[in-house]
Structures are given as structure tokens and as C-alpha cells.
């Protein structure tokens, strides 16, 4: 059994039905989909029992009907992307900075770009891009159009 398959089976064994999907895409690329309620447990399991210490980055995705928060963990060359599904009506997720401190910036980024509230994050104060960025405008959300964002610049110019 390859390392990738071993990781998938370990996760499946531990969490069973709570894992919505777990697959090996290709060599050294593993994708796991979970609900946000089990998301932190999976991360904690990977950190404490498997020994994953490195989070490469955290992607946020606006998948039209829901958000996804995807920490990409790195373990012996394998990238484990843990996809957490976040519903649009309550954009919240638990922080993982207490498990892996290196995720600090990435969670800030997700918060800033998608407006997903990261619960328990030590510092989610004014994160926005320029200091005067308007409240509630999250540039990477799909409903925010590029033209709209352009208007900010052109308006200020006049």
C-alpha cells in the first residue's frame, strides 16, 4: 500500500461516515472532503496521531452554493487537501492555529478574502487590504464582480 492510500485509509478508519469523500488523485495528491464540524478533528488527528506538522497554505473557494476552506497539509511529500464545506448562510469555521500555529496568515487571508469568520483566531482585527477597504466587501467572492472593484479605484481618482 502506498503512503497516500495508507493515509486515506487511516482517516477513513478513524472518522468513518463523517468523511464525505477521500481520494487519491494521483501520486502525492490526496483530497479529503469533510463537513466543517469534523474539520478540526481531522486536522488534530493528522497533527497528533499521524504527525503532519506543515500546512502549506489554505485556499478559500466560493463554490457558488457553499464556501470551501481547504488547508493543504504537507506530509513526507504528500499534499493532503482537507476540504471543509462551509454553508453560505453562516460563514464560520474553527481556527486551526492552536493545532498548527503556521496557519495564522492563511486563516487571515481566508477571512479577508471571503468573509468567513474564523472562530478562535487570535487576531482577526483589521485585516483588509488597504486600510480604507470598505466593510463587507470580500473581493474573491463570486458575486463581487471585477468591474465593481474597479469602480473603487476610478471613483477615488476623480
Amino acid at each position, binding site marked *: 500500500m502506498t503512503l497516500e492510500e495508507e493515509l486515506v485509509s487511516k482517516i477513513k478508519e478513524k472518522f468513518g461516515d463523517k468523511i464525505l469523500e477521500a481520494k487519491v488523485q494521483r501520486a502525492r495528491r490526496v483530497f479529503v472532503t469533510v463537513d466543517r464540524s469534523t474539520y478540526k478533528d481531522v486536522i488534530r488527528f493528522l497533527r497528533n496521531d499521524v504527525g503532519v506538522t506543515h500546512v502549506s497554505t489554505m485556499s478559500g473557494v466560493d463554490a457558488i452554493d457553499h464556501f470551501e476552506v481547504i488547508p493543504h497539509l504537507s506530509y513526507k*511529500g504528500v499534499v493532503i487537501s482537507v476540504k471543509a464545506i462551509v454553508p453560505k448562510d453562516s460563514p464560520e469555521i474553527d481556527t486551526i492555529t492552536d493545532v498548527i500555529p503556521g496557519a495564522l496568515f492563511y486563516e487571515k487571508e481566508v477571512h479577508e478574502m471571503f468573509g468567513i469568520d474564523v472562530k478562535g483566531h487570535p487576531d482577526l482585527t483589521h485585516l483588509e487590504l488597504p486600510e480604507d477597504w470598505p466593510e463587507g466587501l470580500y473581493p474573491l467572492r463570486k458575486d463581487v464582480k*471585477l468591474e465593481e472593484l474597479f469602480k473603487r479605484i476610478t471613483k477615488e481618482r476623480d
Partner: protein
Amino acid sequence: MSSVIDVPVGPQHPALKEPLNITCYVDGEQVVGAKLRIGYNHRGVEKAGEYQTYIQNLYIAERICGICGIVHAFDLAQATEHIIGKEIPRRADYLRTIGLELNRVHSHLLWLGVAAHEIGFDTLFMYVWRDREAVMDVIEEFTGNRVTYALMTIGGVRRDLPQEKAEKMLRVMDVLEEKVKKYKEMCLNERTIRMRCDGVGILREEDAIALCAVGPTTRASNVPFDVRADDPHAAYDEIPFKVITYDTCDVTARILVRIDETLESINIIREAVKKMPSGPIRVRLPRAVPAGEGVGRTEAPRGEVIHYLRSAGGERPFRWKVRAPTLANLLSIPVMLTSKGDYVVYIADVPIAFASIDPCLSCTDRAVKFVDVSSGKSWVWTFSQIKRMYWKDKPYWRERP
């Protein structure tokens, strides 16, 4: 002196070729805390990527960073190829490896020069940059450009390396190897360099792991984390090389890691030129990419670069996420810059300690903001906390506006 003043470094500051603001809280000459403000470089590349085709994105990816741009282009191409699910020709893999390694040689030499400049050793800076021009010439001959190579494309590379150019490349590499060895000797033996770099900017092994540092920064803290070895892409699986680590965790270690890696890269280039199979250099892939997702990952000169790409079908990506190595390493900066116990940081150490992670903010700032962090267990300080703890009246005889 017990009072603390803040000395902003940047955003326009000669030590930083890029805008950034480090506010150091100093007590006399000692730095007791540091705060970073990045984001002067935020352009919004990721959003723009969703409005452009994959091919257009390759070029904007290359311009995420002008020093290690090829790495971003490679990652994007790799992620796209993963989604399409096609392998590229072997020769293209080798050419990509050569491109990546030439980039590493040029970037590490550039860094060595900048580091020398930071500690006021301009002569070394001039010498290193003089020799770097040789690499730039090779790159220009190979790819047609000095800085943005436009070498990568989805499905392979755009330019072949003919035999005579390869031979010239090897000759330059021989000369360069001698020079780099000389610089290593110089850095090891020149007393003033050692005085400035030994024991400065300490990042302990456990901190490096906890803060997810990458690249030479973490390898200088004795963590053998190198994507080329762990996750072999391009032709790295067929080319043997050493992962360089040092265990002194300071700026000297980072200098030595980079110099040794330059030598290692020169060997990789030699090996790649020798082993390179013949054949096509690219496959034609459809412009419309099927739905799916892919993770592209490689070791940039500064550390791990990772791209996440999501496609919902069509010519444009649904989501494109870039993480540059500097962002991962920035967390280590406040740790390096905070005096703690026996470990004392002086203002004079700030530029070199900061430069030792080889910051490249243009990569980082595509989507990021600012940071207030410090070392220790309770490791997040907000600005106002520091203010409360340290900021007393400025020791100054006259009220400033």
C-alpha cells in the same frame, strides 16, 4: 535607557527593494519587538486570474515575482496538467528542471549580493552581481529574456535547448562553480562578515517547524524540508542531489545553505543536460480545461511554492490560489527580531535578519495584509498591546509634530 521608540523601516527604505513596513520597537539600540505591515504590493492577481484564460494567466503568474517568476508559471502549468491528466514529454521535464535550476542559481547569487549590501560590504555585492551577469547571459540565451523567461507553457516548454547552447551553459557553470566556491571561502573566513552574521536572526528548529517555515530558512534551522526531494516533479526524480541543511539556525547558516545549494544546482544542471532525452518539447493540450482541481508545487529559491487550481470547465479557471514562500517565512521574522533572554537583537541586525529569509513580497502580497506577532508561547501581540507594554514617551528634547 528604558524608554522605547519605534523606528519604522520602510516602506521606502534603501534596504528594502520592495515596499514593506517593519516597525521595530527599540530600547536604545536593542529591538524588543517588531511589527510588519505588508500589503503595499497587493495587486489582486488571484481575482484577475478568474477573468483570464489559462494561457494569459501563465504570463501574469510569471509576473507575480520577477525573481522567481518561472516557478509560479511552472506551478500553474503543473496544476493545469494535473487537471487535464496528461503527462508531458520527458524532454520538457528536463528543460523545465534546467530553467528552474538556472533561476535558483541567479536568485541565490542575487541574494548573496543583497545580503552583503545589507551588512555594508559593497565590494562583495559588486563581485557577486558581476558574476551573476554570466548566469543572466545563459538564461537570456536559453529563454530569450533576462528576467521573465516565458519558458513554461501548459503541456511543456516553449523553447528547446540546442546542443551548442547547452555546451556553453556547461562552460559557464564550470567558471561559476569556481567563483561560488571562492565566495563560500570568503564568507567563512572574512571576520567582519562572521561578526555580523553569527548568532543573528536565530530561528530554532522547533520554531521553524511550528511556524511552517519553508525553503533555505527552514533548512538552515536543520529541517530537511525540500519539495524537490519530497515531492519529485519535473525531472528531479532522476537526478540525484543533496538536501543541504545546517544546524546553527542563524544568518550564517542561511548564507551557507544558499551557497551550497547554488553549487548543488550547478550539478543538477550538468546532470540534466547530460541525461536529457531527445524528443518533442511539448504536447498540445486543449484550451478548455475539464472540471477538476489540481495542486501544483515546487521548490522556489525561497522555498515551497504551492498553487491550488480549481476548474469548472471552460477556458478560465474557477479559482486560482497562489502561496508564495515569503508569506510562509514572514511569521518567523518577529521571532528572529525579538530580544529574549540572552538573545539580543540590535537595530543593525534588522535588515540582515529580515533579508535572510530572502523576502519577495511581490509574490506574497497578491492577497495578504499585515501581521503583529512576537515570539514566545503567547505569540500574538497586537499593536495596542505592545504599545501598552513598551511605548512610553519618546526620549526627545523637543515635541515633534
